[in-house]
């Protein structure tokens, strides 16, 4: 399944785009998504342990299974307020 991943802040700067399309197996977990992102964009390696993933605007853990059409985002450490 093709997942579109929204990128923000420093992650977006490192990749050079505010979204990327990633081909993943059906029923792929967030852990697989992250591994694939790091392989595709090795400049993100340092952020692997500190980013969170949001699916449909909620934080999820690495075991979460994605579905086609999910809204997925990589959330680097936030700094609002």
């Amino acid at each position, binding site marked *: 399944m093709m997942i579109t991943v929204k990128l923000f802040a420093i992650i977006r700067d490192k990749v050079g785009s505010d979204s990327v399309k990633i081909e993943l197996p059906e029923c792929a977990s967030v852990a697989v998504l992250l591994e694939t992102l790091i392989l595709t964009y090795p400049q993100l390696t340092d952020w692997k342990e500190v980013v969170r993933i949001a699916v449909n605007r909620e934080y999820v853990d690495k075991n979460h299974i994605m579905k086609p059409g999910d809204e997925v985002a990589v959330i680097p450490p936030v*700094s609002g307020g």
Partner: protein
Amino acid sequence: MIEIVNTSINVERVIDSVASPSAGAIDIFIGTTRNNSGGENVLYLEYEVYQDMALETINKLINEAYATWNLCKVSFVHRVGRVDIGEASIVIAVSSPHRKEAFEACRFLIDNVKKTVPIWKKEYFDDDYNWVEGEQNKKGDGV
């Protein structure tokens, strides 16, 4: 009121929005742009937001505040884009019958905005910039 804006925040309007005849207290937090960070001179900040998720996350935090404390009203405004020195980037106002709850709820909201709401600030220095990476739960939370 719960808003994300890209212009100067009208603080008085935020205060007025939580006024209530049953309130004995209004607590307000205003976050402003400081002129220094890590020993360096900051020229201005620039905020970025994942808008839809930010609004949902803020609403959840406010609902949690209402469920935890006896409050009258809560208002929240965050500014995004460029925020110059001394200007407000965030205003949180809480009204309650007694001051204890207003203080505690307001503190809870700003502390948790800084941990969970998908908003990021970029510091601009004389000849460089830096994305601020805030403190958040790293182990056992999220991925």
